[in-house]
């Protein structure tokens, strides 16, 4: 499927989902509102209906006036599958990070996140800098925010006995 067609379909699907499923289910009426005042679902409904129209328009244009493909993405020449794998890896890192915060604490989680992301960018040189960035910077930032703003960073259930 050419990209513009896919794009049009995604847009229509998203706004249709919002207009016909999410708005009725997740926009409750308030305890009281005067009859003549616009209710809470007026605005999201209007916007998502407009979104459906825009998506349809995009779909029609893509089907009947296919344009020259936009400039290709700049890559390092890897295959699509490989890039999809990298994307999946990054998503996994994000999810694990959010899961890790209550278990390992904020400090250790950010260290692991930073380290894995630096490695994922393909950086293998600058070993000392990588170590400083992944382990030194979070400690400095935590000390700074704690002393300046009094932020209490979450401690991990597993790391609490060690004080962080």
């Amino acid at each position, binding site marked *: 499927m050419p*990209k513009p067609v896919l*794009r049009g379909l995604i*847009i229509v699907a998203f706004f249709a989902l*919002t207009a016909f499923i999410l708005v009725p289910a*997740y*926009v*409750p*009426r*308030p*305890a*009281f509102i005067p009859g*003549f*005042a*616009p209710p*809470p*679902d007026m*605005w*999201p409904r209007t*916007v*998502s209906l*407009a*979104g459906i129209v*825009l*998506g349809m*328009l*995009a779909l029609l*244009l893509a089907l009947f006036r296919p*344009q020259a493909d*936009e400039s290709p*993405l*700049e*890559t*390092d020449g*890897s295959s699509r599958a490989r*890039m999809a794998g*990298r*994307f999946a*890896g*990054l*998503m996994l890192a*994000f999810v694990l990070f*959010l899961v890790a*915060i209550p278990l390992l604490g904020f400090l250790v989680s*950010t260290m692991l*996140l*930073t380290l894995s*992301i*630096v490695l994922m*960018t*393909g*950086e293998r040189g*600058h070993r000392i800098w990588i170590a400083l*960035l992944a382990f030194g*910077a979070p400690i400095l930032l*935590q000390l700074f925010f704690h002393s*300046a*703003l009094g*932020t*209490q*960073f979450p401690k991990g259930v597993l790391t609490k006995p060690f004080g962080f």
Partner: protein
Amino acid sequence: MLNEILSALVAVATLQNLLIMIAGIWGGVIVGAIPGMTGTMAVTLALPFTFYMDPVPSILLLVALYKGSTYGGSVSAILIKTPGTASAACTALDGYPLAQQGKAGKALNMALYSSVTGDFISNLSLIFFAAPLAVLALRIGPPEFFMLMLFALTTVAGVSGSSLLMGLVSAALGLLLATVGEDMYGSFRFAFTPDMQAGLSIAPVLIGLFALPELIKLVVMRATKQEEAATLGAQHVTRAEFMGSLKTILKGSVIGSVLGAIPGIGPSSAAFFSYGEAQRSSKKGANFGKGELEGIAASESANNGACGATMIPLLALGVPGDVITGVMLGAFMIQGLTPGPLLFQTNIHEVYMLLIGMLVSSVLLFFAGKITMRMFAKVSHIPQTLLTPLVLLLCVFGIYSIASSPFDVAVLLVMGVVGFIMFLLNIPAAPFLIAFILGPMLEENLRRALAISRGEPAVLLSSPITWVFAALIAFVLFITVRREVQKFKTERRVEQ
């Protein structure tokens, strides 16, 4: 009056005051320039110190931090596409492309000159037009506010890049996302989790949408193209370039000063407004968004222009226009000074001291900007593979610290993924953000206007101010449609 001004000048011209202002401005610029740290953070951080200071220096410190951080936001917007504040979002649109072309120095200097000019003009308008602007601000009721915001939303047409249609889609997404959370009548919309009852904050959405896709692109596509960063010294803004943008800077300053005076509008909306206006009227309009100095000038003159002007409703009416002036109101009250109509009668000496101090701090902003620029320009020597993770780290800590909320960090990461998908689908991000910020103001004022008029839509065209904006909106729609039709025709000709 002259005597009062002179005695205020003497009272304000102490070494202590000067040092406080230097510290405030410079501290503000640095905080604003660090990704993930915001002006609000700087001001709330400084608030407890002001309890032990005299009234005038303590307000001067907070104002200096506010101005400094508003300018500082442009530094990270230009160098690493991470606007420190929402008001620098339009600066990133032109500043980051310029930095990629190796012209970061030019962009930073233009941002500084425009900010200082905007700031100075704004302070002058505070001194001479505070009373009439405050009266004007009171006239802006819900219908006027709605029309004004609708006009500001037409900026979307200018930041949509190659496809107006995709720009509109992006704006619709932004409007929709802005409705998450408690609405004005107290019903929780799209609150899938208790955290979402409070809605999505601007900071994680802004940074997630602008900065994080760069990181994801780096990881997924690894297209690192390293330009040798040219030294800043060789990159002054030439006289011709400055003169070419002067009209835009002056216009942006006036837009900022007038819009800033209306409580609730704030620097971001003023910057969007000015950017859209500059793009429509500039000869180089087509180059906006691809690295145009004039775009930076428009955005930065307006956001700093609004900064000083937000003091107008604060001082003259006692009404804070945004979070930062809200904190300042608190500082005034703690000092036993009550902003409002009486302040100019009972505390005119302090008011003059404040105004003179603000003018001085405009000048200080110039030097603080120059020095900080040199410090931060060095970031372009850090390899992308280390810099982007560092930015993420700073943002994660900064965003968490705003409200001690892991949810905000999750929003940051999710918006990054959304931004990346939008990039893959060629949907521009800027209209999303503009709509996200303007959306609540549009919706709430529309609903307020209709509640007051008992459901009668004619209220939206009930006063001269609304007629003016309706005419402007019609004009912009007309030229946008005409441009699209012309584009359509030329494409067809090319095909044939």
